[in-house]
């Protein structure tokens, strides 16, 4: 009986949550007239005209937008993993003066809303002459406070005996970090995927820094959601589906590892 109540509640919430997405996928085959009648789920025909138009480069170069977003989010997640895991390791296994200050810095990076920094970051990048450059957007999100806090807790669970052994063998802290890195692979994947998600969805900073020719997915979606209705609604929805697809694949593939890593992290 208790299983039944749980299943009904979760099933109901899942249905309310997911039904709009099923409708969205099916609506990518609909005309505007069909879309404006959201009570109808199935399209009259499964003509993929919206996908053809989306990838035809008639409205935007969607391949380029997709590639740019993958490069920015993937690059940022990769470098953030490297940089913050190293700092997390130093905080977890190092005793040094200034440790509290580094931790406090990481904490304030988390607590100071990044969007509120976007304006001054945009001004600063203009002064450095890197406005409009992809590398500016990519590297601006590498120093992640959340990453430092996450990895400091992950490395705290690595047995101290391994550190002692490394010191006996004369390894430097950096050498030891590189040696131990494969041990925390699930945590690296988890943080990498979560950082990728947040970078993938970043809207304001690319809007400020990148030019109109360098659209990322959130900017392209905003452009396709044309209020004058000149662009078929199905095209915007198709772009939304395509923007979700890489994340669905990533999360679907790594979901078990993410759950394991988060379960270990939350008890530290």
């Amino acid at each position, binding site marked *: 009986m208790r299983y039944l109540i749980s299943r009904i*509640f979760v099933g109901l919430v899942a249905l309310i*949550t997911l039904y709009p997405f099923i409708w969205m996928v099916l609506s990518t085959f609909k005309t505007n007239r069909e879309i404006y009648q959201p009570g109808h789920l199935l399209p009259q025909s499964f003509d993929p005209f919206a996908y053809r138009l989306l990838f035809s480069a008639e409205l935007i170069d969607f391949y380029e937008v997709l590639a740019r977003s993958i490069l920015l989010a993937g690059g940022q997640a990769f470098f953030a993993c490297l*940089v913050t895991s190293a700092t997390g390791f130093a905080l977890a296994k190092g005793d040094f003066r200034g440790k509290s200050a580094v931790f406090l810095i990481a904490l304030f990076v*988390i607590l100071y*809303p990044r969007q*509120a920094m976007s304006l001054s970051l945009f001004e600063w990048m203009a002064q450095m002459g890197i406005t409009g450059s992809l590398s500016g957007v990519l590297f601006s999100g590498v120093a992640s406070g959340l990453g430092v806090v996450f990895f400091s807790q992950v490395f705290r669970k690595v047995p101290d005996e391994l550190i002692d052994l490394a010191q006996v063998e004369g390894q430097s802290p950096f050498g030891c970090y590189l040696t131990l890195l494969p041990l925390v692979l699930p945590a690296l994947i988890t943080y990498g995927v979560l950082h990728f998600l947040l970078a993938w969805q970043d809207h304001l900073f690319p809007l400020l820094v990148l030019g109109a020719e360098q659209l990322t997915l959130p900017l392209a979606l905003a452009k396709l959601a044309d209020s004058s209705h000149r662009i078929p609604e199905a095209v915007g929805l198709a772009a939304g589906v395509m*923007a*979700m697809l890489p994340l669905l694949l990533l999360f679907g593939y790594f979901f078990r590892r993410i759950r394991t890593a988060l379960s270990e992290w939350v008890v530290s």
Partner: protein
Amino acid sequence: MSEVKAGRFWGNFPALLPLLAPFLVFWAIFWLMPLLGGVELAMEESPSLIKTEPSASTGFNNFLRALEDAKFRHSLENTAWFVGGTLLVTLALGFFLAAFIYRMKRRYQGISLFLLLIPSLAMPGTLASLFYLFFHGKSGALNQFLVIPLGLEPVNWMMSPAWILPCLVAQAVWRWTGLLTLLLYCGMRAIPRWQFEVARIEGASSLAMMLGILYPGVRHLLLFGGVFLFIDGVASFSGAYSLLGGSGGVMDAGLLFVTYVYQVAFPGGGGRFDLPLASAMCALVASCSAICGFFILRLRKSGALRG
């Protein structure tokens, strides 16, 4: 050099510099310098007020102008309601969902969590489009399933000032509940099984176990999730920007803080191009929210964010 404990590295900072330097360099370039630059910019004379040199300092004048700006105060009020509503609903819904999934058979747990996570994977702009096309409108799902069956007149959700903000809250709740549920579920899985067995032997009800074991077991994660939602809510931009087209909606009923800052800073928004005033607004709000978040985290004695 200080005494080295077992399982600990060298007590001096230089030995650990190769590990710490990349983070500190990126932090200095992309966080500290822009922050200081932002404060400096906030003290410059606004273009609309220029009488002498463009970069003349005005001290704290822009901060005072920000506080006197009625629209800025209105955007803060909206943001406070938005953050409060999102926090309350997401935390409560996330907790109950996690508790119910935890009680389900294991083979259903993974798939339930993954399905609930899907809205978190969608772009805020996609959620806004879906909200507009699927839920909104006379024939939209909200009117068809909630309003008309009760015999009420259909609501024009995005044109009614009373409903714009709840719509934005609903969008944020839809986006974040799955991710929070996953985090809380992982926390519940870490609670020792013997606690439930003892409670069961003592005849505790499901509700008593939920409030007496599950809730204390994930309280630190609720706090962490709450702080994350608070910071994300204060800085919320994409969802409201996509749904309201960069405006604040009818009578600015959905004008959030970051949207207003964007309007002040760039001509495309409100036509004012007032970067110093926008910087002052950002510095004020971001500092206050960071300090609030810090003190909230200090309240807890142990858990996910202890240094």
